[in-house]
């Protein structure tokens, strides 16, 4: 059993559990808790001053997620390295599973009911893809990264789940997977012109891909291009969201006093449009404060990545941080009418257990990278690189 190598006394990089807890990035934990706390407050407001039905459940999920995060954080990074391909494979099988089940059953179903918890394979894939790609590129030299034949397997690793998710159809998650995967390619040193080529091909494929989009997805894009076209139909959400944000002004209307949110002009205020509600009730000041907290978390991710001594950890750190950033950016840009409406929640703040779990698990990995930053891992995936 491979794990036996890391028993006390035998592994020079072994970090005792107590020390791992000490090394845990408590500032990051505090930032995550602060962001989640803001989420609880907004959910409390969204329910017109009640913990039911959202705030309380969100807190419980946060508690469970937090424990899971710390558990993952203090687990040796090399274990995650070894599990990377396995978890990717499991996630891929589950994705195919829901796809088949969705075909047999009724329409789009994106989750597997585990009784206590509804597992969304696409969420699992967001993490697994980062792990698997990091593992793959961990084994490649910088020269290898230039070889197209060696770039084809990771490309398939990205496109396969993206295509499956797109079929569900979940445009938002597909974009997150592709962008998240692209980040790893970027970090591995893949040449810029290759990105340009891919991007060009993708742009050229838009007219073809357009035909495969569902009507509601087409509507979302069209509505984004001209929201005033249909202010009572598809454009309603974005128009109301902008009204809510704009009317919030500099300092906002006050906690639980947002008229757009509380009189239900704003749709989905507890999930995708929770940032709008925050902007309405706390104004520009509140919005910028939240943005600042997110920027801090992302910066932390970079600091962790740059201080890490193994390529796998560095890539995982930037990978999960980038996924987190994409969530934040897509959600906020969407509610402000900068990009089309895609169903991406605001991480840690929006109501929803699955996303909360995904984010906390990925932060667990980020912290694991941080705790085990001094472990060196060879390109072969061994820790004996020093010999």
């Amino acid at each position, binding site marked *: 059993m491979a794990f036996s190598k890391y028993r006390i006394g035998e592994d020079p990089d072994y970090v005792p559990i107590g020390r791992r807890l000490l090394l845990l990035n408590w500032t990051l934990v505090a930032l995550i808790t602060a962001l989640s706390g803001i989420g609880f407050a907004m959910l409390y407001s969204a329910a017109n001053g009640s913990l039911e039905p959202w705030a309380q459940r969100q807190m419980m999920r946060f508690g469970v997620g937090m424990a899971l995060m710390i558990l993952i954080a203090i687990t040796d990074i090399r274990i995650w390295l070894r599990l990377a391909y396995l978890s990717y494979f499991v996630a891929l099988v589950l994705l195919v599973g829901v796809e088949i089940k969705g075909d047999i059953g009724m329409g789009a179903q994106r989750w597997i009911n585990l009784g206590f918890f509804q597992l969304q394979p696409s969420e699992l894939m967001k993490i697994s893809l980062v792990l698997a790609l990091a593992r793959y590129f961990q084994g490649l030299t910088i020269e290898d990264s230039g070889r197209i034949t060696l770039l084809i397997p990771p490309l398939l690793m990205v496109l396969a789940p993206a295509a499956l998710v797109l079929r569900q159809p979940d445009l938002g998650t597909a974009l997150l997977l592709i962008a998240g995967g692209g980040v790893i390619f970027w970090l591995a040193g893949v040449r810029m012109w290759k990105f340009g080529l891919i991007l060009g091909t993708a742009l050229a494929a838009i007219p073809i891909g357009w035909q495969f989009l569902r009507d509601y997805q087409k509507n979302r894009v069209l509505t984004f291009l001209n929201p005033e076209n249909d202010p009572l139909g598809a454009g309603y959400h974005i128009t109301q969201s902008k009204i809510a944000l704009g009317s919030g002004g500099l300092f906002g209307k006050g906690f639980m006093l947002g008229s757009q949110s509380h009189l239900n002009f704003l749709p989905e205020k507890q999930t995708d449009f929770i940032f709008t509600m925050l902007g309405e009730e706390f104004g520009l000041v509140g919005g910028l404060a939240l943005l600042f907290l997110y920027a801090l978390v992302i910066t932390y991710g970079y600091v962790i990545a740059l201080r890490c001594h193994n390529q796998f950890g*560095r890539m995982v750190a930037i990978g999960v941080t980038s996924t987190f950033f994409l969530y934040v950016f897509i959600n906020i840009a969407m509610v402000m009418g900068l990009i089309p409406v895609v169903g991406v929640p605001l991480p840690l703040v929006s109501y929803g257990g699955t996303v909360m779990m995904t984010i906390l698990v990925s932060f667990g990995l980020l912290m694991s990278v941080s705790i085990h930053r001094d472990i060196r891992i060879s390109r072969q995936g061994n820790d004996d690189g020093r010999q």
Partner: protein
Amino acid sequence: MWHRDSDRFRMFTRRALMLGAGKGVLLTGLAARMYYLQVLESDRYRTLADENRISHRLLPPPRGLITDRFGAQVAVNRQNYHILIVREQSPDVRRTLEILSQIIELGPDTIERVERDVAKRRSFVPVTVRDNLTWDEVARVGVNAPDLPGLIIDAGRSRDYPEGPHLAHTLGYVAAVSEKELNGDPLLELPGFTIGKSGIEKVYDLALRGTAGTSQVEVNALGRVIRELDREEGDSGSTVVMTLDLELQRYANQRLSEQQSASAVVMDIHNGEVLAMSSHPTYDPNAFTTGISHRLWNSLVNNPYAPLSNKAVNGTYAPGSTFKMCVALAGLESGIISPNQKVFCNGHLDLGNSRFHCWKRGGHGWVDMHDSLKHSCDVYYYDISQKIGIDRIAAMANKLGLGDQTGIDLPNERSGLIPTKDWKQVQLGKRWQGGETLIASIGQGYVLATPLQLCTMVARIASGKAVKPHLTRDHVTPDGVTSRQTEEFPDVQINRAHLARVRDGMNGVSNERRGTGYRARIDIKGMELAGKSGTSQVRRITMRERQTTGVLKNEELPWKYRDHALFVAFAPVDNPRYACAVVVEHGGGGSSVAGPIVRDLLTKAQELQSARPGVSAANTQPSAELRSKPPQSEEGEG
């Protein structure tokens, strides 16, 4: 091996920093967008947010009251209770309605209709179950309220006319706004809002309507009212005080109700105030306020006696002999006829090939102006009208208020018709014939007048002023009510002595024995009336009829071919104060049918005046010295 890894690390670091910088740019972009929305465009969005959440609702103002001249309320606003149901407050709408149907009466399809309506609306929108609950029903529902979850009793206002049919024609009525009447005023679009459709209610609708209040409410995205933010009460409509004397009006209605179809006007000759205006048959305006049934409407419209029409202003009749004062005055004013000039009446007058008959077979002998009025001699007027000419007669008729609307504050007043040579040329394209002047001189032919015009004519003869009738004590405009106190009618511009001559003739009609209106005299000292009867033909009497059966008596004819009976008068003779005109459609003889009604109305008016001393004393000025001749008697009609 390590150097190769360090290459990889350097590449990673470079690329990671580039990536981080890119993210920084994007986050800055988000911040910039936030600044744009929340600072630069904030005012615009704040307005939009308020437009979303604030809804203005109109509060209908209470309609102004209408009273008679002494303040008795004749049009009021009654509480109208209706019962509504709110789906979200009722666990089982059908069950609630079934329980309700055992407590109060519901229409046969009510439950089905309400269930349909409830299903169509949002759950918090109340749906009307029934209108016009009696107080007793309201109490019964109230007692059972615990068994009737979701039911609301709501009190609205609806117009009520306590006098019912007594004032229908002058008051008019209100009813729901029709599609055509919508003019963009949001008040008119309120459910249940009513506006004046006829009578005073229509003419002064804007003043009676008042100004709407507004209620600012906060609503949610579904339109549910969350709370009231601000409320501005409207102003109720102005109270309109009518000139009518309710007691005299009731009496007039009662007197006319003995006839099939008739109308009457009593007026104060000094200020033009109409004290009574009655048209029979009448209707109950209350039937209109909450929606008239189709059957009742049809029966009103198809009634041959036209109950919906106010015949005092909408009915036009050949004035018959009541027009003779007009011809006499035209003769005097033109200087062609002197009062003492006599005409010999042998019962007819020949003009060309036509023979014009006096109503009295065998004729009146030598007749002067006084006697021509007293006996209503037709030949006298045939004779003098030839000398005066139709145009002079028409000019006098216009001076006395005929041939044009009097301007009374009622809708659809008819203007009647006073023919002239030009009129005939223009309207009919034919030349005026001499014989037509003769026919016009006895108020037949083309001549048409409303009872109100005839009353105005008498008022002008009696007062010497260009009296104009009106129905409100004050000027009523949408901006408010101003007094008419300062108003003084101009002189009618007829020689006073000539007017006195004509009044003297009218005195002869009713106060001298053998005057045509002697039977209709008031036999109370100081209250005597001076009048003139009129019996206007509505059919042509052919030569054949005269020669074979003789002129048929009214009783021998079907109703609609019988003569109209007219009588006009003023009283008291010595110091005129009241003018009155009565027209009984197809009633027969003017002095025998209409005369007694005029007598009774003028008597009642004077009695009421003395019974209410000091009330609305008009500036009575002695205007005529009338010689009282010993009464003589003569039976007959004119």
